[in-house]
């Protein structure tokens, strides 16, 4: 059909295109185009009315110029004129121009809509299709407003031509995607479902896309499509290759429709009706069987079409995850593809198997292909295929094959593409930890990792190895020996030096018996690396040295010499200088006993989720880590947003390792217990939780094994800490208070409310005393610093504080504090730390009682400690769709709490936003259809459970001042949480 000659002949256009193609340079082309534009402009402006043909030709030229990448700012009107032409070809060019160069000029849109309206009602199917294509191509809101009501009618009308139905279905789909609110479900909905039964395959093909999209949003209304889809699929699958005539593609019956049907079924759980399910399983089996049949054609199109259906069927099988037989068959089929000569199939097989590996039914079957996958990792020439192989190895890893997989990944890492190294490193680190049976293997693996790809080993990885070594005494000697050996290498990575410094500083004594690794040898080895390292590493090494002085008194003079030299003690870097000065002083004035206590071995770290895993989740999104078979429920953690944690401002503010200005909260310099308080109060959380996910982004923490020391240890133990200094242990315990604590102050509740949306500030103040608070929370843990400032010039005596939990609170909240000095000098300030652990959600606040004598008079004050449930929020980012979906899932009446209340201080958007962020939730933009409203999401982390929480705050800002109201709605999986947060937050506005 050489149709090109047919009635075509816009010769002027062809000449123009030739001219452009003959242009030798870009400049020449631009010149030619400008000439043409000037010509067209003058024609359009000219007095002589242009006939339709010329208009069409010029509009077409403009279109061509636009498609070359030049801007077009005129001609729209002429194009719109073409729309109303009776000549098909003019109309067609007009529509094409409009579709390509949409302009939201409202005047034009009105004209365009008019033309479309005329064509839709013309009853001429060709014109109708053109109009529908235009709507589908432009898909603007204005068009949706004009036609969203009309198109469903056209779609289901009995007398509509098939081709028009097809266009109408997809046109409606586009409008629905653009403006779901304008496409109203109605009587047509049920009739659309029955289009699945239409005789015309083209109609079914078009309609099913619409149905799939609609059923994703309204699954119940479209439930009936499941059985219809199954029977349609069954008819196609069992048909001979010639039955479907032109819908058979290279001997494969209706591949596009089949894929779409299988995709539609993935919107639903397995059919409940046994007969339907049986039929579907039969279909899936037939599809799997066909994959084994000899190909009916050698053409790649045949195998692609056949395999497209196969992969879609496998996706459905995985979606159901309930038919062990089918899962294993799918896995075997994919196994064959792993060695297929088509790169595409190998890629897809690796990808699909990754999801199969996470099903308990097929995990074992996937594992049998390990050798092939390893081979793929080594030999594939295409990096994207290798990446898939690495992903699959990670997914199929379990205790039985971890050593092999980790070894292979390590060796691949040596030559891996730079783009994927960091991810590979994380994966190796995770697998090594997760499946470590003997920890010496783990230590070896991580050290290898640092050796091979040191640059890509992030902080989390080496933090983690240290945590694990510290927590397991069976591996400490081995670790010391191994790092010692690793440090022998002439060039070793800085991360190796960090790990080496830390581990030898802690456990160097375990290998000191061997003369080859005597204390001095160890020290010299470490110090030989010192000058090549960056400041944070040097700081860490200095800490290791002071630990050496404690471990090996014989090194004291050597190390003191090092500390004393100008390059240390006068280092231009404040941190290094400070450490050198303090350590030198400490080593010379403290007795051996004091040193031994101060520099004691690190206590074990609490077990928490691996920070590395959190980092990987963050890198790849939640899906990527779904390998965690043990964790079972893939959906379980989803409300966490896959690790969007750790970006809270509190964290980024607290990562400074120099003495932090934030410690100076109350404007009074907090009196340090001893002048030598090393690094910052500010970095506390980073240290405390450096193994928690948050540290991933907090980043800067350098070593944390000295400065973090006091934070990690259980508060009761009184072994002296560097921060507290040697004098501390002498202090007398506070005298027991004989008086009963006073009842809470009447304003205690208000004071508490002040801190719902903030963590720092002054909690209480009277003429004598000021109490400041600085607190930080991470997951279900918190740390609160209370600063008691004596505002007078006279000392407070018998100063004591007590934190208590009334009512049920002791089972919900775990609080620990250290006692404070019983004496506060006039003008001085003392600090007290409260460690908080949230066990489960709670309502009441803990009480803080303060007693002291001022000039002989007993002062007895009780306050509420501002620990509220929202402090344990972790913000969760989600997109609109996700939010709505979760909102719907929390639809039981008791899950919702709602309050309507008057605004206290007028409605200021910025203030509201700040408060909502302060609450701890993520403020979600562009989620609520009404931009005035605020929606937030977060997860409350308690020890026992996580409670997902959604919030919606609707102000009526338009109302008169004084009349302004809010409506606050909370939904969470726990009624008490919804209620409590609703109560707390409603007091904030």
């Amino acid at each position, binding site marked *: 059909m050489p149709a090109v000659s047919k009635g075509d002949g816009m010769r002027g256009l062809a000449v123009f295109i030739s001219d452009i193609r003959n242009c030798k340079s870009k400049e020449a082309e631009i010149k030619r185009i400008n000439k043409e534009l000037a010509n067209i402009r003058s024609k359009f402006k000219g007095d002589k009315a242009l006939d339709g043909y010329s208009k069409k030709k010029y509009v077409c030229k403009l279109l061509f110029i636009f*498609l070359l990448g030049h801007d077009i700012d005129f001609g729209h009107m002429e194009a719109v004129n073409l729309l109303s032409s009776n000549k098909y070809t003019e109309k067609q060019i007009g529509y094409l121009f409009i579709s390509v160069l949409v302009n939201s000029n409202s005047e034009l849109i009105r004209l365009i809509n008019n033309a479309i309206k005329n064509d839709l009602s013309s009853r001429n199917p060709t014109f109708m299709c053109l109009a529908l294509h235009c709507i589908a191509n432009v898909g603007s809101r204005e068009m949706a407003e004009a036609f969203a009501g009309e198109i469903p009618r056209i779609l289901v009308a009995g007398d509509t031509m098939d081709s028009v139905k097809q266009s109408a279905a997809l046109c409606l789909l586009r409008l629905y995607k653009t403006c779901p609110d304008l496409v109203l479900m109605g009587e047509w909905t049920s009739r659309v479902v029955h289009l699945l039964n239409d005789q015309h395959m083209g109609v079914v093909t078009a309609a099913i896309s619409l149905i799939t999209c609609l059923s994703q949003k309204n699954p119940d209304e479209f439930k009936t499509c499941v059985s219809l889809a199954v029977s349609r699929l069954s008819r196609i699958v069992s048909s001979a290759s010639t039955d479907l005539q032109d819908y058979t593609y290279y001997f494969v019956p209706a591949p*596009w429709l089949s894929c779409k049907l299988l995709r539609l079924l993935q919107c639903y759980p397995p059919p409940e009706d046994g007969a339907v399910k049986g039929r579907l399983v039969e279909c899936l089996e037939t599809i799997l069987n066909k994959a084994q049949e000899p190909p009916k054609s050698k053409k790649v199109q045949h195998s692609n079409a056949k395999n*497209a259906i196969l992969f879609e069927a496998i996706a459905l099988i995985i*979606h159901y995850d309930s038919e062990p037989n089918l899962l294993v068959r799918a896995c075997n089929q994919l196994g064959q593809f792993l060695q297929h000569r088509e790169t595409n199939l190998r890629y897809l097989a690796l990808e699909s198997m990754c999801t199969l590996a996470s099903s308990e039914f097929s995990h074992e079957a996937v594992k049998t292909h390990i050798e092939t996958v390893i081979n793929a990792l080594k030999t594939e020439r295409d990096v994207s295929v290798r990446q898939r192989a690495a992903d699959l190895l990670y997914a199929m890893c379990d205790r039985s094959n971890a050593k092999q997989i980790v070894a292979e990944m390590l060796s691949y890492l040596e030559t891996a593409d730079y783009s994927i190294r960091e991810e590979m490193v994380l994966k190796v680190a995770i697998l090594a930890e997760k499946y470590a049976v003997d920890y010496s293997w783990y230590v070896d693996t991580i050290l290898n990792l640092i050796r091979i790809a040191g640059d890509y080993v992030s902080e989390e990885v080496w933090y983690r190895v240290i945590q694990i070594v510290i927590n397991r005494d069976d591996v400490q000697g081995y670790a010391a020996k191994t790092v010692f050996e690793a440090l022998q290498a002439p060039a070793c990575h800085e991360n190796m030096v960090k790990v080496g410094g830390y581990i030898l500083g802690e456990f160097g004594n375990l290998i000191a018996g061997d003369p080859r690794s005597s204390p001095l040898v160890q020290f010299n080895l470490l110090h030989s690396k010192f000058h090549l390292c960056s400041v944070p590493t040097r700081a860490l090494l200095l800490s290791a040295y002071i630990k050496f002085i404690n471990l090996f008194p014989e090194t004291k003079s050597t190390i003191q010499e090092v500390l004393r030299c100008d390059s240390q003690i006068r280092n231009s870097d404040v941190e290094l200088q400070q450490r050198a000065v303090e350590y030198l002083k400490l080593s010379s004035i403290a007795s051996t006993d004091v040193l031994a206590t101060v520099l004691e071995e690190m206590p074990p770290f609490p077990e928490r989720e691996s920070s590395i895993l959190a980092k990987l989740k963050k890198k790849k999104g939640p899906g990527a880590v779904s390998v965690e078979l043990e964790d079972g429920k893939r959906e379980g953690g989803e409300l966490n947003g896959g690790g969007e944690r750790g970006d809270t401002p509190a964290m980024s503010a607290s990562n400074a390792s120099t003495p932090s200005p934030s410690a100076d909260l109350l404007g009074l310099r907090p009196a340090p217990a001893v002048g030598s308080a090393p690094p910052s109060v500010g970095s506390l959380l980073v240290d405390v939780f450096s193994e928690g996910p948050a540290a991933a982004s907090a980043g800067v923490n350098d070593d944390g094994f000295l400065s973090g020391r006091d934070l990690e240890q259980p508060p009761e133990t009184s072994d002296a800490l560097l921060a507290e200094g040697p004098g501390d242990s002498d202090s007398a315990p506070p005298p027991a208070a004989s008086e009963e604590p006073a009842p809470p102050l009447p304003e205690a509740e208000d004071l508490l409310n002040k801190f719902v949306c903030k963590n720092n500030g002054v909690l209480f103040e009277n003429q004598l005393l000021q109490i400041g608070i600085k607190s930080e929370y991470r997951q279900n843990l918190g740390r609160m610093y209370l600063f008691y400032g004596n505002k007078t010039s006279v000392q407070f005596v018998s100063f004591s504080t007590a934190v208590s939990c009334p009512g049920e609170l002791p089972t919900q909240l775990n609080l620990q504090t250290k006692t404070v000095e019983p004496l506060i000098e006039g003008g001085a300030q003392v600090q007290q730390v409260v460690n908080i652990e949230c066990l489960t959600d709670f309502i009441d606040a803990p009480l803080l009682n303060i007693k002291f004598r001022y000039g002989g008079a007993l002062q007895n004050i009780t306050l509420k400690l501002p620990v509220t449930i929202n402090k344990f929020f972790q913000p969760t980012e989600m997109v609109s769709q996700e939010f709505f979906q979760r909102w719907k899932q929390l639809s039981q009446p008791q899950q919702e709490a709602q309050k309507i209340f008057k605004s206290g201080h007028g409605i200021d958007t910025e203030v509201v936003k700040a408060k909502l962020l302060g609450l701890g939730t993520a403020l979600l933009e*562009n989620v609520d*259809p009404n931009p005035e409203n605020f929606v937030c999401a977060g997860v409350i982390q308690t020890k026992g459970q996580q409670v997902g929480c959604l919030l919606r705050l609707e102000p009526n800002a338009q109302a008169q001042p004084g009349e302004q109201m809010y*409506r606050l709605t909370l939904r969470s999986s726990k009624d008490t949480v919804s209620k409590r947060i609703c109560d707390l937050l409603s007091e904030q506005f």
Partner: protein
Amino acid sequence: MKKKKKRSEPGPSQLSLHHIESVFVAVRPLSLAHVLQNLTKLREKMHFMLLFSRQGKLRLQKWYVPISDTQKKKIAREVIQMVLARKPKMCSFLEWRDLKIVYKRYASLYFCCAVEDQDNELITLEIIHRYVELLDKYFGSVCELDIIFNFEKAYYILDEFILGGEAQETSKKNVLKAIEQADMLQEEAEAPRSVLEEIGLT
């Protein structure tokens, strides 16, 4: 692969403000910005299709999601560069941003589609092939020049085949029949014109 069970309750967008006194204005229609935001999140079959030459010249572009012109240029440049850098025998799928690029080369032309991450790559490859077949049948062993000089036809054929990013009619015969009918209408409507007039000299 994961799809949540949904309950049939109005989402926040349709939430009725039932137990609310008149102090609250009714939910206002969606803002356009919101729509655009939302739109990219809804599953689209195909985001765009590009045809370009080995020299990287764009021959045809079809966008199924609303994107600004500057973005289009940027994306096209990026994708073209990426695809041209691929070696033969490499796989036809590329991960790009959160989409997947499926491409295939026919003689001097690259055909390239961007689909959602979970979409079926192989069937997309065959979408490309079917389009090539349609062009081939219509032009009679199509070459790059046919598409350059008759770009509007290439667009019409694509519109008949794929609409809004979804396959509308997969039968070759039916698509060509529709185009043929349009051509017939065209013929009837057009009177022969003089050569001079054609080249714009009158």
